[in-house]
């Protein structure tokens, strides 16, 4: 954690909130560590304990950090600890390790002071309603909303955008008839809903390429989605694999089969790269490598979280959820 020594200054107030869970380190706690490493912040950390403590809130304070451990009933006290601690004239950012829509006690209070909400949560049960509420939050508040799961897909989105670099490729992508996305799955309690990035990615493709979703089916270890494209039906499969050294949820491979035997295979390589194989009926391109922005590229990744406005592509993703989340 960066410390506010005479050499460091404070860029912003960061209020983080998370429910305390036992188990291995989650993606959120890894993200938290990276953020603190990259930015000098004044940190207010709120941890909600799972059980009622029946004790006063636990408060630990030093120059840079205020640590609050509260049970659910004590959350309403949090603003009274937070307010005196804030550094004036600096932005206030929220780093939320839970679903901001469902947290009704703390979030409505402190979101009013904040400029930006960065949240990471699992896949909601009711995608359509959730998507609608997030969209509402974007439209009705002054908050810049950053969905970390969406940001985690930025690397793969950039890769696909770079491959689709001419009208012919765009036509091929639009007419795709088979899309397979392989993602990493870990069964730890903190890593459920590992399909979320894969789901987001295919939803983004569908919104950008005018694919119309007809059905969504979930089975053990896989999602199957049926789309209609300008060329005909498209089957999208989201497939679990297990890779122990890679964070759960990370996308490992994408395979696209397009009309006229045009095929693309994009495979994750070590050190944040993707190797791309592209072929048509007539020829096979020499495989080429593209960089992949992941959390390993710490500064770039946190810049995406903290400095990027809400993009129209994310709005399209939310629209996809609203339109098809009930299927």
């Amino acid at each position, binding site marked *: 954690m960066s410390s506010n020594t005479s050499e460091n200054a404070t860029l912003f107030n960061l209020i983080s909130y998370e429910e305390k869970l036992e188990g291995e380190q989650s993606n959120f706690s890894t993200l938290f560590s990276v953020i603190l490493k990259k930015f000098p912040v004044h940190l207010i950390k709120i941890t909600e304990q799972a059980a009622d403590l029946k004790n006063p809130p636990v408060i630990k304070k030093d120059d840079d950090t205020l640590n609050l451990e509260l049970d659910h009933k004590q959350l309403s006290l949090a603003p009274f600890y937070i307010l005196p601690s804030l550094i004036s004239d600096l932005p206030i950012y929220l780093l939320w390790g839970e679903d901001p829509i469902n947290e009704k006690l703390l979030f409505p209070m402190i979101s009013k002071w904040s400029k930006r909400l960065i949240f990471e949560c699992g896949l909601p049960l009711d995608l359509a309603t959730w998507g609608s509420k997030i969209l509402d939050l974007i439209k009705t508040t002054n908050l810049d909303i950053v969905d970390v799961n969406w940001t985690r897909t930025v690397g793969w989105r950039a890769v696909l*955008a770079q491959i689709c*670099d*001419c009208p012919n490729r765009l036509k091929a992508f639009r007419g795709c008839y088979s899309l397979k996305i392989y993602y990493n799955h870990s069964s730890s309690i903190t890593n459920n809903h590992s399909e979320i990035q894969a789901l987001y990615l295919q939803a983004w493709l569908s919104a950008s390429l005018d694919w119309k979703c007809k059905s969504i089916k979930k089975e053990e270890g896989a999602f199957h989605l049926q789309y209609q494209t300008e060329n005909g039906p498209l089957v999208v499969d989201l497939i679990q694999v297990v890779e122990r050294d890679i964070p759960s949820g990370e996308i490992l491979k994408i395979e696209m089969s397009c009309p006229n035997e045009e095929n693309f295979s994009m495979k994750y*390589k070590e*050190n944040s*790269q993707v190797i791309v194989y592209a072929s048509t009926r007539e020829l096979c391109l020499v495989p*080429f490598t593209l960089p*992949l922005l992941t959390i390993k590229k710490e500064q770039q990744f946190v*810049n995406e979280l903290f400095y990027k406005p*809400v993009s129209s592509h994310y709005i399209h993703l939310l629209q996809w959820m609203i339109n098809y989340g009930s299927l």
Partner: protein
Amino acid sequence: MFDSTPFLNPLIDTTLLSKIPDPCILVIFGATGDLTARKLMPALYNLARDGQLPPHFACVAFARREKSNEVFRAEMFEAISQFSRSKPIDPELWKVFQEQIFYHQSEFHDDKGYKSLKSLLEDVDKKFDTKGNRAFYLSTQPSFFPLIVQKLSENGLIYDTKSGSDKWSRIIIEKPFGHDLNSALMLQQELTKYLDESQIYRIDHWLGKETVQNLLIFRFSNSIFESLWDRHHIDHVQITVAEELGIGTRGHFWEEAGMLRDIVQNHVMQLLTLVAMEPPINLTSQAIREEKVKVLQSIRPLVFSDTIRGQYGKGYINGEAVKGYREEDNVSTTSSIETYAALKLYIDNWRWWGVPFYIRAGKRMPKRVTEIAITFKSSPGYLFSSHNRSVDPNVLILRIQPDEGIYLKNNCKIPGLSNIVQPVKMDFRYSSYFGSTPPEAYERLICDCMTGDNTLFARDDEVMTSWKLLTPILEHWNQEPIKFPNYPAGSWGPESSEELFKDSGKYWRLI
């Protein structure tokens, strides 16, 4: 029939923080020189490392010495290991990156060499899908620029911008752009026989520095300063570019150049225009460069008595004895070349009328520092006259290097029973807030050239106008030599430089 409709990729997110440059091949002429090893190749490596290189990219080194691809790649590995801002080199990244580097041997005048270059580029295009886009970086002596451009054009390596093709070709040239007005005009004439101005990218690498880019952001996003930024509130401006180092091994070069040509005509004039310009109508390169040129055009012709030159003699730098300029290698013992230049100039427009700008640039100064100091007019001193002789004026310092940041000197009451006033400093330092190593200037500039953004490159009229201003001074100095050396190394320049402040009550800042 060629379809000139631009391709709109629905998968591209326009809110992306970084631009993704077009696929292209960067050809570096003179690639076995110092600049490639120290700056260009490390810049490309770091762009690759940060995912900022275009997805389809290759680099071809064009130079006179015989070498294979493998030998050149190994040399570049050593250079990047030594000069890259990020270390150590990522072996996995290097494995991929080096495959994108090629070496092509030829003399600059050899037509066969250009034909084989064309063939190589076509092969590389196919292999890396670089779409025929070309950037040619001329890291050579300026005397070779016209020849190289001519040969590139004659061999079909430069595209006509009027052809409507979706391929582009661009030339990047380093300063100096000529050595006086006539030579700059001739160079421009030679280049524009084969190139459109839009294809010419004149690098002044200072424009790629974060702190220089911050000048515009600072001025135009902080309304309190912009409302004070004029002749009603500012007393004078000092721009200092000081180097501890001498000329090193660059005696040959320096004997032809001097401080006015090497630093003042380009770097200092860029700083001056950014400090003095009007707000642009938008942030396009055309709008910004338009305002910069207007500043240069508004500068009153220089009076010789408002210029000072100097040459360092022996002295001490950080306690160590150093030799004088005339004792350096490859320097004439009777050289009249200046290693120090100072000017007082005025910008004749509504904003700056009557505000003197003091500029000094020198080698073998006590420390390395580049800063812009804006001294505001003093407050009426009668309130505190019984306690102090005078109250210091406020000074806003924009520190370009080192210890990059912005400082404001203001006055404060000393705690206690009296009203004694003490100057103090409020400061913002880049390193304290943004700790991480920012991109090097060349990374930004190469990336901008590949994206087609010429905001941070000098326009032809910028260059000509600054030469027009300074060429009479160069001619006068050439015709009227003075006694050199006239300042010891390790001092702030010749004593005569104080004459610029004669009777004004002002003086050079002691930094």
